[in-house]
């Protein structure tokens, strides 16, 4: 039992650390990707190729003066970024990072915990995440922050529905709420994206909106709201907000790859490698490869597209994505009925 616990702790800590490091280097990657797409070089003075840039930003933010506006609610002001950061880190608990390792005859899945309602858990935690933004924006007692917070919460609520509906179609197909099982079912190249292309499209659009990334970055869009909900934040509290965004991006990339792109399953590799431990390690790497691709996609889109207007965003969410998601459910049901898969 104690080794079980130890291994779990190791997995939890490493998942935590990895998501932090990935988020940290996403900031660096974002700056580099943006620079490269814009014919620039990007940060290259801090360390070779600017590789120490995130550290510099981190240390700087830690050492910066903290300002809590007199007019704000102190408790909520601090609660905001903490909540954002906490929820961002919590989501990673149910994501299966790999098949599992066999150590000393026991099988340990590479996952913090395999709850059988994993998807519901993800949705639950993600929807708490908006409170971080909302509370922070409201507690700042600044009109720009408040507008940002309002935009964030209405945007999250409207897109969560479409997102949930697009997942329902997937769940109808897979018949389970456990993320690991969904990943397992896609073994051998039967990726869900081939069966649910529309669902995937809706899901990824909603994922952009949920993470507040362009073209849905209304809550913090610079040209209108200065800094949006984090206008009044300085030092590491701001760092938490920015960090949370990148962690969210990492997690949603992980969720997308797991739900629609086969997770850690890797077709054909079984022919060359037989040792199951090695196999699952390679699978994990493969998963990370997919995750990085999706992170790149996030950035790629951000630096290409203009952003929506508030009302257009709502129109897209309620009038286009929502009906599409419902239609998708119907179509999925019909096809399943036609193929006789409904019991």
């Amino acid at each position, binding site marked *: 039992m104690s080794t079980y616990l130890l291994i779990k702790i190791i997995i939890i800590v490493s998942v935590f650390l990895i998501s932090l490091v990935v988020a940290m280097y996403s900031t660096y990657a974002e700056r580099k990707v943006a620079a490269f*797409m814009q014919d620039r070089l990007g940060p290259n003075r801090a360390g070779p190729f600017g590789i120490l840039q995130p550290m510099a930003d981190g240390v700087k933010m830690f050492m910066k003066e903290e300002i809590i506006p007199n007019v704000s609610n102190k408790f909520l002001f601090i609660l905001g970024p903490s909540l954002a950061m906490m929820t961002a880190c919590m989501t990673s608990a149910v994501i299966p990072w790999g098949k599992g390792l066999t150590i000393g005859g026991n099988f340990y899945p590479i996952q913090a915990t395999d709850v059988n309602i994993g998807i519901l858990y993800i949705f639950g935690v993600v929807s708490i995440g908006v409170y971080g933004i909302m509370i922070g924006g409201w507690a700042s007692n600044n009109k720009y922050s408040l507008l940002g917070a309002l935009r964030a919460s209405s945007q999250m609520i409207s897109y969560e529905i479409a997102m949930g509906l697009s997942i329902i179609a997937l769940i109808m197909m897979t018949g389970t709420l456990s993320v690991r099982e969904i990943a397992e079912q896609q073994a051998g190249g039967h990726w869900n994206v081939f069966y649910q292309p529309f669902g995937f499209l809706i899901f990824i659009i909603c994922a952009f909106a949920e993470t507040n990334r362009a073209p849905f970055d209304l809550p913090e869009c610079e040209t209108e709201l200065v800094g949006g909900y984090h206008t009044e934040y300085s030092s590491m509290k701001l760092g938490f907000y920015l960090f949370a965004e990148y962690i969210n991006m990492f997690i949603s990339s992980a969720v997308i790859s797991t739900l629609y792109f086969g997770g850690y399953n890797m077709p054909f590799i079984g022919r060359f490698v037989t040792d199951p431990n090695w196999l699952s390690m390679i699978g994990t790497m493969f998963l990370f490869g997919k995750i990085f691709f999706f992170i790149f996609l996030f950035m790629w*889109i951000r630096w*290409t597209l203009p952003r929506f207007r508030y009302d257009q965003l709502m129109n897209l969410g309620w009038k286009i994505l929502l009906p599409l998601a419902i239609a998708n459910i119907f179509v999925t049901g019909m096809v399943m009925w036609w193929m006789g898969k409904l019991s």
Partner: protein
Amino acid sequence: MQSLTNRSKQVVKQELTFAEKIYLPAILNGMKITLRHFFKKKATISYPEVKRDFAPVYRGQHVLKRDENGAERCTACGLCALSCPAEAITMVAAERNKGEEKLYREEKYASTYEINMLRCIFCGLCEEACPKEAIFLTDRIVATSLNRSEMIYGKDKLVEGVNERIDISDRQTSEVIEFKRIRIFSITNCNCWN
């Protein structure tokens, strides 16, 4: 509103085609462009290491020229100060004493000559106003400073060193250069001007 000229051309088409209505083709098109730039050669000039060539007539830091014998050319006529729209130039004129012929070319010279680099707008009017080939703007950029009072450049910073001449011949017209060549050749029979 009726047309005022017969040259107008309607350029706006606000209607959307179906392909445009579904967002995706335009988005993919845009992504294609940005991806192409991702792998393109970068346009950046890494400034402190790589320096860009300035145009020969670039209007940067001023220089007070010396003549071919090392004497200061400025005769303190005050035209540069007068023509300066920012009024950044201050000078005090003095008479040349005996024995200073090597130092000053004309009988009058500027005993102090200051340019307030923070006032200066680098418009080049002083260079144009100078009738004595004394002041020129060069293609050097003025250094930044931590201190406002440092930015008033006196003669110590403006006059070129006797052994560190600054070549400004690029800025002068070919007629001037031709004229100088002939004159110097005839007068001093040497071409050590710059």
